[in-house]
Each structure stands twice: as structure tokens, then as C-alpha cells.
């Protein structure tokens, strides 16, 4: 994270100079920024890391051809991973489980929490589709033994089965389980587990870099007025309010 350390070093320099709040003009700031050399390849790697981790396989393929940046993972495995993620997002949880097991049978065997969450999501989908009897049988046969093994699973199971007790599930205390957010949460949990099993970091580097930028700007705000980046999507420097 060389970028990060450059920012930190500048922060330290500014801190050393300023006893009261210092004003840095746009001209001075841009001059300083121009002094920082960042290799194009590093920027490209950052982009490729984001595309690969988030699973944009076509974009990654195009980017590789255009920039010559090699991805750090076999692109074919991204397609498999995305198929699993998509299956969960669409509510085809059984299909997703089978796909994960084909990809690597160890993942769900060694990750009881993830396995429970997938089975819980399967139960939620059965309840959503009004298959009450099937849901009860599934909960009894597949989920109850997991609850016996782990107290916190049991609590989550009870919450989920509570969905069956309400006529109007959209307005009940555990209604958020039926929310699309729940599917996304489960999907991203599976996604992270697959990445880890492939010895790949589960989060892209870019968002944490942006978090560091925000943190560094906040630190700097206490010492100086300077051209800030307020809109991260545009990354435009905005003049300091003097």
C-alpha cells in the first residue's frame, strides 16, 4: 500500500510545519501530488484485483487484453464462483450448495456456520413460497441437528421458523429474513468462503484504500485547510473553504 504511506508521510510533514491550521492552496497541493510517482502497472493491478474479486469476469478478460495485466487467479474459477453467488441471489439455494460441493467439497464440510446459513436460506425460500409442510420437514431433518450442535444456530433457527407463525410475514418481527438483503448477505458469505478456499483475499483492495483516504483526510482536516476530495466517484479536488 505505498500510496497510503505517501499520504501518511505528507501528513507528518504538514503536522511538523503547522502549529495552527495551515492553508494549502490548490497550486501547492497539485505540485505535491505531481511529485508522487505511481506506476501505471500498480494502478492496473488494483483495478484487476477489484474486477476479479467482485467477479466481473468479462470486464476482467477485456481489461487483461487492453492493459496486459495478468489476473492473480484463473478466470474460469470466477465463472463458477459467480454461478454460485447468482444461484443464492435468485433463491436457488439447493443448486448453489451442489455447485459449491462440486467446486470444492471441503468448503461446506469445514465451515459449519456457512453451511447453516445456506440451509437457513433454503428454509426461508421454502417459507417464502408457501411450502409449509416441506419447510417444517426440512427444518426438522436438516436444521434441527445443527441446532443441537450449536446454541447460536438454534436461536437463529427458532427465529426463522417463527416466520411460519405469522399471516402477514412482511409485517412481522422477523420479516427482515424474507428481505432481499438476507439473500445478498448469504451470497456474499459464500463468495468470501470460495475465495478463501482458492487462497485469494476475500475483499478487493480498492475499497480499503478509499477508506484510508477518507481517514487520512479526516486527520488532515484538523491540521490544515486543503483541496479535498469530497465526491469519491469523481475524485475531483475541491478548493478549501477559507
Amino acid at each position, binding site marked *: 500500500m505505498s500510496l497510503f504511506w505517501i499520504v501518511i508521510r505528507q501528513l507528518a510533514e504538514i503536522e511538523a510545519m503547522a502549529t495552527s491550521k495551515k492553508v494549502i492552496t490548490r497550486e501547492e497541493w497539485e505540485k505535491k501530488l505531481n511529485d508522487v510517482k505511481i506506476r501505471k502497472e500498480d494502478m492496473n493491478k488494483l483495478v484487476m484485483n477489484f474486477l476479479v474479486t467482485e467477479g466481473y469476469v468479462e470486464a476482467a478478460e477485456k481489461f487483461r487484453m487492453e492493459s496486459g495485466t495478468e489476473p492473480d487467479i484463473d478466470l474460469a474459477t470466477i465463472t463458477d464462483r459467480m454461478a454460485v453467488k447468482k444461484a443464492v441471489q435468485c433463491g436457488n439455494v439447493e443448486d448453489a450448495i*451442489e455447485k459449491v460441493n462440486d467446486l470444492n*467439497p471441503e468448503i461446506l464440510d469445514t465451515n459449519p456456520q456457512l453451511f447453516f446459513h445456506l440451509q437457513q436460506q433454503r428454509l426461508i425460500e421454502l417459507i417464502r413460497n408457501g411450502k409449509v409442510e416441506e419447510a417444517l420437514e426440512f427444518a426438522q431433518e436438516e436444521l434441527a*441437528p445443527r441446532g443441537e450442535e450449536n446454541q447460536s444456530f438454534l436461536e437463529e433457527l427458532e427465529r426463522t421458523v417463527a416466520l411460519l407463525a405469522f399471516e402477514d410475514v412482511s409485517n412481522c418481527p422477523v420479516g427482515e429474513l424474507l428481505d432481499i438483503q438476507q439473500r445478498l448477505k448469504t451470497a456474499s458469505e459464500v463468495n468470501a468462503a470460495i475465495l478463501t478456499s482458492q487462497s485469494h483475499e476475500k475483499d478487493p483492495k480498492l475499497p480499503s484504500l478509499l477508506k484510508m483516504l477518507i481517514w487520512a483526510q479526516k486527520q488532515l482536516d484538523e491540521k490544515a485547510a486543503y483541496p479535498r476530495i469530497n465526491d469519491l466517484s469523481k475524485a475531483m479536488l475541491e478548493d478549501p473553504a477559507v
Partner: protein
Amino acid sequence: MPTSASASDSSVAVSATRRHSDLLPRLASSDGLVQVKALRELKNRIIGNRTKKLSFIKLGLVPAVADILASKADAGDGRHSDLLIQSAAVVGSFACGFDAGVHAVLDAGVFPSLVRLLSHLDEKVVDAGARSLRMIYQSKLAPKYDFLQQKNMEFLLSLLNSENENVTGLGASIIMHSCETVAEQKALCQAGVLKKLISLLKGSLSQRDASLESLATIIKNNVEAVSEFVGSDSGRALSSVIELTKDRYPRTRLLASVCLIVIRNTCPCYLQDIGIKTKLVYLLLELHDDPGQVGDEASFAFCTLIAGREDLQKLAFEANAIDKLYNHLQKGALHPKRVEGILLAMAELCSKLDSCRFKFISLKALDLVINGLTQDSAGVRAAACICLKSVSRSIKSLCAGDFMNEMIVIPLVQLLDDSCTSVQESIFGELEASSLASLVSDSEPLVQEQALALVRNLVDGCVNCIEFVFAENGIILDAVGRQLQSIPKVEIGIQGMYLLCNVASGNEFHKEAVMHQLVPQAENGTQSFMIKFLQSSDSQLRTAAVWTIINLTFPSVPGAFGRLVKLRNAGIISQVKTMVNDPCLEVKLRIRTALAQFMTSDDGSI
């Protein structure tokens, strides 16, 4: 765990039989496609589901899958790849984290077939075979791998040199499972395994972790291997392990610190730098925050770091280790493994330093430990006993008046002015005699041993402390006596005997109570366990037994002679007389003391 599965076991077995009784014929089908489908279905049924694994093992499906593996494992032409991948995956899942499964898989003879898969042309088959073998090697039940045979060592090296991550991982698992003796460590180093593992430190995430774990296995308690490692690449290997303690992955940080602890504990001359020690203390405490396995294992690593080392215990105390561990322990619904680890870490912290013990008592952490005494997990119960034993040492110091000037002691000293039983009541709060007695009779030998050691510690010291074992009609003493009738291991005999020895140092009433346990009341021809203990091949047990006799026959107290007669009638005195030339000096000296006492009390009849 089979126990937790038992409640719903039968019902699941029934429904599994009902719905999947067709799996067996399908697995035996002559049509490969039917077999693949059946295997895949079986795989998806059992992954993550212990209950199902158990019921399918009972239905006899493992041998059917083993047959497929055995018949197709040699065909390297790729025709049967799918069958092999699916059957290896099924076998691996049966063996995953589940001893009954490993048993079934090994009994079905899949081992050689899986090894053959490693040289298959299809990389995916190799992956599947390596994964399954790794699962098996993670169990204690896996066969030990003999590194001392040349061809085995060559095979291991070929695994470690493989391009395939799953295969190198298997190599590492074999080392972790099978490397136990110094000779094996030496053979591995000489074959270049250490160097290979060092190079894997630069590999992928999983290779790094596997390498750290196997490195720790190879160098543990082996000064030569540690020196070779520390000297490798002019110290760069060691630096890279130190660097990995800052890794972003908690598991890697944990394994790297375990590796450093092993180096330090083996060769105290390395890693003397206070900075590193402090860093390890903070790192391991911080790793407790991990909600998963890493957090569970962190306390065990922490124990090995501070065990028996006052300097590190002091550092840990200054890092607020007691508060931090206490805060973790306070959270409910913890995994038993984690509770056990934290209790052991607390025990280690309180084993030497009174500052730690006072902190412990001031936090009222004792309530949590007492809670641990009645937990389902034997590991937790044993750890709670060890913890109590550690903390109870401070009472002894208080009795001895070692640190009366400390402000914090005053309230405790006031309690000491009272009778000792009430000190136990105050300090041990809800610690009831009955719960200790049940621990003494626990089914786990380790729990028994620790419980006995705890009571022995409690009754050591002032005479009034002995009253503790007589609470609730002597329930503890009776339990001890019963346990000593048949001891599963010698350590229990030693602890129990010293306990009786301490009690026998008390007043007449105490001595008579011990006699009651030693000499069977009804003359039913049963031999006193004392005879067995005096004849034991363990000199510590013999010493403890003779000490007890000395305490019981101490002359110039009214009942001494009567006890001497009882001991003679039980055949114990004549046994003592045969031991004047015991090979153990300590025993020999005690025997002479005992014989001298006999002479003093003797009126000619003994």
C-alpha cells in the same frame, strides 16, 4: 460428536433408509452414469451433516464407494475421471472431522486407492484424491507414516515438490500427523524437508499456513532443527516468520506466533528481545477476538508461551491479560474448547504470581470457574480444576503470611482469622463439597487427577483446612477412598494418596477417618489398596503411601498404637518391613522413619 447427534439420530436414520435405500443398488450399478449420479447425490447429502454421515455409514454405503475407487483408480486414461472425483469427494467428506467416519473409511480399505489417484493424469482427480487423504490425515486415527523408510521419504518429497497446492498441503498434513520422534525430525531435516517448507513460506495463503504448522512440528523440542532453521538463509527464514505475525489473516498470525513460541521454548537463547515477547503476548490476547477456531486456539498457544515463565506471566499481567480473558469468559454461549483454553490460560497466569491471583479474585472470576466445574465437557471441568488449584495457592501464601503488608490482603486475612472452612466458604463462594466429590468420581481420569490435586492443595497447610474434606458428612473423603480402590492411572493414586497423607497429618479424628478408608471395615478378605501402592513400581506412589503411614503412626498421640495394630492386621506393616532396601532413596529413608516409629510404639506385639 456422535453424542450430540444421538437425539435425532434414529428418526433421521429411518427417513434416510426410507428415501435413500435405492442408493446402494445404484452405487453397484454397471452403468457408470448411474453411479456418478448416485455418488453426487450421496455427496450432497452428507457434506456438512454429521447426522447423515452416521446414518449412511450404518447403511453400509462406505464399502460400496470404496469398491468403485478400487476398481477404477488404476485407469489413468481419463475415462473414469468423474467417477473417481465424486467417489474421492464422498470418502473425504465421510472422513471430515468425524472419527466414526475415518474408521469406516479406513476399514473399507480406501487408503491405497486414494494414494493411486495422486499420480492420475487428470489434475482434478489428483485434487480430489489429495483433499480426501488430507481429511484422513487430520484425524488421530490415520495410520502413522514412516519417514525413516527411504521410499516413503522420497514420496513425501515428491508431494512437497508438487505444483498442485492440494498435494503440497497433503505433504504438510502427513508431517503434522506423523512426525513425533527426534529421529523422525532429524530424518526430515536431512532429507531437505525443512528447506522445502521454508521456501513454501513464500507460497500461497494455504501453503504458507501449512508450512508454518509443519515447521513447528519439525523443530519442536529439537535444538539442532531449531538452530538449522534460525540459521537458514542467513536468518531470513526466521525474519519471514516474524513478519508473518503481522499478516492480515488471523490464522497466519496465530500459526506464525506458535512457530516462534516453539523456537523460544526449545532454545531459550533465541528471541530474547523483550520487544518480541511483548508482541507475542499482545498478539495472542488480541487473537482471542476472532470468533472462530483461531480464537479458540489462541488461548492454548498463549498457555505454551507463558507456561512456567514468570517473566512472560508478568508481561501478560501488565498487558491486562486477566481482565481480557475474563471479559471473553463472561460472554455466554462459548464453544467448550474456548472455555477450556481460557481457563487453562488463567491457571497458567495464576500459577506463580500473586498479583495475578489477586486480580483474578478481585474480578470475581471464581464464579465463572466454579461454573466450569459442572460443564458437560470433561476438558472444561479439568481446566476449571487446574485453574482453582492455581488460584488456591495464594491461600497457602496467605497462611504463611508472605505478604501481609499488601493492602489488598487485609480483607482476606480477616477471613483467615475465622476458621478455615469459612475462608473456603468466602473465597470459594459456591464451591460445594458435593460438586468437588462428584469431580473426584468423574469418569475422565484427567478430571479425577486434577480434582484430587485441588483438594490435596486445599488441605495442605493449617489443621483447620482439613475440615474441608469432612463437609457434608465426609462426602469428599468417601469419594477419594472409592476412587483409590481401582485407579485408572498412577497419577491419580499419587494425588489421592498425598491427599490422605495431608488429612492424616491432622488430629485424632482426621487420622481415624483416613484409617477407615485404608483398612476395609468388614473383614471380607479384600486387600487394602495400600499394599498395592506400596508394591507399585512408581516410586512417587510408594513415597506417598509411606508418608501416610508415618502420619498415621506418629507416636505419642493416644490412638497411635491402635492404628498400628489395625495396619498390622491388614498386612500393611509386614509389607513396610520388606522395603528397608527400597531402590529409591527417598522411599528407603521414609521406610526407616516409619520403622523407627513402630519401635517407639511397640510393646513387643508388632
